Structure formats: structure tokens, C-alpha cells
């Protein structure tokens, strides 16, 4: 996601995808979702290279994740720990799993041509992926920073 698309800074507490149709019992083993800020504006084939020197943060893990949707709806995951997004860099949403039950969750995407905004591969430990000019539609739930500083003032005036 590009910073210009996200338009916020704050602590991300939940990430959702947008299902486009029903899916029943799609199972993913040892599923993990990470978020990572990056200076890159489009991805390369290197998963690690796409981090741009930053360290991804694990926000969700599940030994057996099951996703069921009834149609066009958001489905998502609360962050185990809020992810502090600074608002100026771009953001990589990455998920991986080791096994599945061969069931897919159809989801809404948007076109990013000519920019490569997706990198995927069917092997868990692969270092390189295949590029795509699309991106998943996402919803981010966040808590913005408090107004700072809070101040209390006193005005005293003397009239004569």
C-alpha cells in the first residue's frame, strides 16, 4: 500500500481483506501475517529486498486459520500487537502459510498497471516470487496519535 493511499499515521489494530464471493472453510496451516514499512514504491521479485532494510512485524499467527465468507464482505484479523505506522513510507502486507485445504477465498483486487505491487509464490521458504500488477483491496483499522500536548491555561486580567 502506498502512503498516499493510506493517508493516516497511527497504530494499526486490524487488517481486513474484501471477499468478493462466498467461501466455506478455507483452511491455512501455520498462517502468519506481517506488516512492514518500505521505501520502495513497487515490489521486486525478492521478498527480503522488498522490505527495503526494514524489519517486518508479525501481527497475526494461527496454527490453523479457517476463513468462511458469505459473499461480498470484509474479513480480517486483529493485530496481536498494534503496528505503529508512521504515515510517510509505503506498507507491505505479507502473509504466508505452510499448508492448506485447497480452498480459495475470492477477493476484490485493484489494478496497479504498470507498477508491480504484488509478489507471490507457491513455496513457503522461497526467496523469490512472481510479480503482478494488482493489489488486494484492504481496510485498515487504526488508532491515531493523541493531540499533544494537552495544556491547561489560566488568564488573569486586571481592569481599572
Amino acid at each position: 500500500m502506498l502512503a498516499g493511499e493510506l493517508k493516516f499515521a497511527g497504530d494499526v489494530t486490524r487488517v481486513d481483506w474484501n471477499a468478493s464471493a462466498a467461501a466455506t472453510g478455507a483452511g491455512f496451516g501455520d498462517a502468519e501475517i506481517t506488516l512492514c514499512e518500505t521505501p520502495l514504491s513497487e515490489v521486486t521479485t525478492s521478498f527480503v529486498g522488498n522490505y527495503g532494510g526494514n524489519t517486518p512485524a508479525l501481527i497475526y499467527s494461527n496454527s490453523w486459520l479457517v476463513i468462511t465468507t458469505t459473499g461480498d464482505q470484509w474479513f480480517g484479523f486483529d493485530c496481536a500487537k498494534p503496528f505503529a505506522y508512521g504515515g510517510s513510507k509505503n506498507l507491505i502486507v505479507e502473509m504466508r502459510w505452510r499448508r492448506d485445504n485447497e480452498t480459495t477465498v475470492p477477493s476484490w483486487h485493484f489494478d496497479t498497471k504498470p507498477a508491480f505491487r504484488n509478489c507471490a509464490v507457491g513455496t513457503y521458504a522461497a526467496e523469490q516470487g512472481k510479480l503482478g500488477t494488482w493489489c488486494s483491496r484492504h481496510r485498515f483499522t487504526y488508532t491515531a496519535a493523541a493531540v499533544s500536548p494537552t495544556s491547561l491555561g489560566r488568564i488573569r486580567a486586571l481592569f481599572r
Partner: protein
Amino acid sequence: MKVAVISALLLVAVGAAQAGTAIVGAKESPQKGPWCGT
């Protein structure tokens, strides 16, 4: 001589965390995945 004292207490800003949501991307293309079982 008239003397008046006005004392006012001002609450300049109240710090409070604001929750929100950001939606990125339009519903352009329904596709398989990315949660795509193999």
C-alpha cells in the same frame, strides 16, 4: 476606582486517541486469492 479581576480557565486541547479506518483500493476485479489454497 473600579478594579475587576477576571480569571478564566482554558482547556486548550484534550488529548484523546482517535480511531479510524482507511480503505485502500476499489472493487475493480474479483479474483482468486490472495488467500488461495493450492
